């Protein structure tokens, strides 16, 4: 795929709409998840200080530590509630995510009704793939943990940096492995979108792609993941350097940067999803013929 044309396709009006929709939905979900925690901080009395909650970000963290000490049970409770909300919203976010996939796969802009109808069709398969992906990652992490435990006996014969370096390498390998699981399941989702096959069949297609041509999707996936992680780290560094406690303008700039980064994360993911779609065969394609992602059903409303 030509990068320029790929970007043009990615930013086509239909895709732009789906990207923004998914971004807004995830942003709203994040607000729901964060609200209990933020409410505990806000209710701690810190807002009555002349500097307000800027004190939580001051060097030395005296007030941050104080609020955590005094509000610890409430914070843990809020975190718990937040995680349950995250679970619920993660399920709800399946809908805009499927809409993003459908939109990316469509050759032209889809009407709202068509987009919704096609998306609904894919939700059960996506839900199953999501659950299986979670289970596979948990199993992989468990195996990695058992492997690390088995290796720990060897660490007594290594120097401390070697032992810690080995543990770090093992941790990174585990993360890469979990990324590979995500990669395979994204290919499975792509197969489902392109050919409408069931979740398990789609998984079979994805594994087939992984066997035949592992490099192109892997490069694209890890490039997208790396770019996202790098972007988050750079944003954190810039926001840290901004020192939001020093004035409202700095805070506003930091908030804008965070918004931009969160949108960029969705855009980068959409870029990868489009690449994933191009990696899986459509019905009737030969295995090598997997570049253009045609939509399996025409859009009567388009």
């Amino acid at each position, binding site marked *: 795929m030509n990068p320029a044309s790929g970007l043009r396709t990615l930013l086509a009006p239909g895709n732009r709409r789906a990207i923004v929709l998914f971004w807004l939905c995830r942003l709203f979900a994040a607000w729901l998840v964060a609200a209990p925690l*933020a409410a505990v901080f806000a209710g701690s*009395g810190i*807002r*009555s200080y002349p500097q307000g909650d800027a004190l939580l970000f001051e060097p030395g963290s005296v007030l941050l530590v104080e609020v955590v000490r005094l509000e610890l049970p409430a914070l843990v409770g809020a975190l718990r509630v*937040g995680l*349950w909300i995250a679970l619920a919203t993660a399920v709800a976010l399946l809908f805009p995510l499927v809409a993003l996939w459908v939109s990316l796969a469509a050759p032209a802009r889809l009407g709202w009704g068509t987009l919704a109808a096609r998306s609904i069709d894919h939700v*059960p*398969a996506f839900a199953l793939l999501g659950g299986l992906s979670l289970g596979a990652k948990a199993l992989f992490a468990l195996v990695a943990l058992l492997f690390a435990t088995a290796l720990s006996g060897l660490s007594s014969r290594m*120097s401390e940096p070697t032992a810690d370096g080995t543990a770090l390498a093992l941790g990174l390998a585990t993360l890469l492995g979990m990324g590979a699981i995500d990669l395979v399941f994204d290919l499975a989702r792509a197969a489902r979108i392109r050919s409408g096959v069931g979740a398990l069949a789609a998984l079979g297609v994805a594994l087939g792609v992984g066997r035949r041509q592992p490099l192109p999707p892997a490069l694209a996936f890890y490039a997208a993941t790396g770019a996202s992680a790098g972007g988050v780290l750079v944003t954190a560094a810039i926001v840290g350097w901004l020192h939001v406690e020093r004035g409202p303008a700095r805070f506003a700039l930091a908030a804008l940067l965070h918004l931009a980064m969160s949108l960029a994360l969705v855009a980068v993911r959409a870029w990868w999803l489009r690449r994933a779609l191009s990696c899986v065969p459509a019905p009737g394609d030969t295995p090598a013929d997997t570049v253009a992602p045609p939509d399996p059903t025409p859009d009567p409303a388009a």
Partner: protein
Amino acid sequence: MGERLVRWRAEERRQLWIAFGVTLAAALLLDTFVLPRAAAAWTALAPAPAETASSHDDAGQALRPPSNPEHTAAPSQPPARIGPDYDDDRHLARRARPVASYDLAARLDAERHTVTGKGTIRWTNASSEPATELYWHLYLNAFKNERTLFLRSPFGAGRTAQRAADWGYTKIERLVAAGADLLPRLAQHSPGDPDDQTSLRLELPAPVPPGETLELSVEFESKLPSIVERTGYSRDYHLVAQWFPKIARREADGTWAHFPFHPQAEFYADYGDYRITLDVPAEMVVGATGRRVDEKRHGARKVLRYEIGDVHDFAWTAWPGFLELREQVDGVELRLLFPAGHETSARTSLESIRFALPFFSRRFGRYPYPMLTVVHPPEHAAPSGGMEYPTLITTGGPWYAPLLGVRALETVTVHELAHQWFYGLVASNEAAYPFLDEGLTSYAESLAMSQLYGPGSLFDGHSFEVSEAAVRRAVAAAYAGAGRIGAPAAHFADFQELGALVYARTATVLETIGNVYGQQKLLTALGRYARRYRFEHPGPKHLLAAVREVFDDHVADTLERALFEPAAVDFSVDEVRSVPYREPSGIFDGERSTRPAATPPRFVGRVLVRRRGDLRFPVEIDLFTERGDRLRRRWDGRGTFTTLDYEGDDRLVGALVDPERRITLDHDLTNNAFRSSPESGGRILERSVYAAYLLLAVAGP
């Protein structure tokens, strides 16, 4: 769309249920196992205070040594005035009076982890009374069996809550004085505690008059336990501390300060001269108290001779894996011993010592010894880290901590170094008054760390900084009113409580006094105390007298109350009211008194500030008006509340007590401010939403 939903096939519905089940199970696992552990970890950082003072007194009774009527820590004489002579080093004591001196030869069996020793102990009766008995500390007997005071707790009440996996002991095999065998006269003596053999009593055949010296010939075998807190072995690493029979300290009035070894307590001993010969396997790298004066190789072994005066203990370490770094710092030969891969750790410790050694010397008197050894134990022997002995300290921590911005290594290095003054040079009774060594050391450490590293003195992660003072203050506040700082070590419920009160709260009390009444004056008081009582054994009275001398009765009384009562302080702004001014109305007898028409204020108001707790400090209060003006008032802290009246052309909208946060002892900082319309809290909401967004991006669909 609803029609589509209905049209989902049975297979698709089954898929949906499976997905739901898997996700729910994962969430339940997270909620049941991960979150409670995370909460417990946080709780350990900032523990809740004990419920009541009475429950505190009852806590840990089974672990507490029985009361010892002979044990007096503080001399009964009121301390004499110190005076400005001790504001510098001109009158600093040059030498300690040698009371208990040890000339010992020790051989390490690195396979059995035993040390066999023999030699001469000279003890001088420095008290005013003849001595008819001699008390001994055999600290390693604390690890002899599970009936000892130290190991009796099934939970591990020591600072690492770790139990020895291998037993340890010290056995005196020969004890002779003037040709008489004294061994049969030696009896275990932990009053009311017959199973503990850490305190022994020797009945002397003849009294030793005041000023006379008794020479004892001794042979012993010590078996090191596996590393448990301050001593022991781990694989081929040995930290050999409390390894020889040690004579207890006799106070000036003739009473003995002896006690069984409690897991929360440390040590107390007289100064003396040490001449120690160590016979170790040749491959061992050795670090020890004192100056190495000789080293000879004998086949597969080597013999090293160490000498030092004016100390009250001798510890050493032997491990083949040590690397070494040497540097002269402030005229002191610094020797760092560390495992391979810890080069960064060693340089980090060195950087801290370069700053802290002259820093402490300037404030508390010159460091008098020509050497200092810093030992960074290997990771498998980590519990032996963070300990002080004369001219030898142990640090610790993972090699990568300095790279991550965690300043734990710097903190422990500076803390143990500060102990060279408050423990080493001012040898207070650590069992009776642990705050005199640990508390003053923590304050000194905090002072040095904040000057050296600023707000990132505990963690410096680019733009997110946590100061040691912030965490220490929070830990101290969590135990406000929970117990007495000035209690003996054995009287705390557990090491967590001791840590919070003795370490954190003492430092916070001193920090508050310095902030409120003058840090320079506080340093003058501590400097006088440290210099005047160098090579002596002062008690709390001496510290309080120094503070009284430099400050006044109020400050000294406040310090005494903070140390010896479960006293606390919490300032809060409870109310801010402001209303438009209006002329008084009603029925007046005679002429109604009114203000001149030209000067009435537009607004009047009232601010209510409370002080809860038994500690009183003067405090500033800032009043804020709608236009952003700030008016400063001062309250002397008398009474439990004060009301501040306001008159002005602008509406009063808020107040803040202690705006410079001088009173770090304040129990709750979140109630120090009041605003009629609180700020929106947008920053924390924005940051939380972004964090949740990233969470959903990583773990969500």
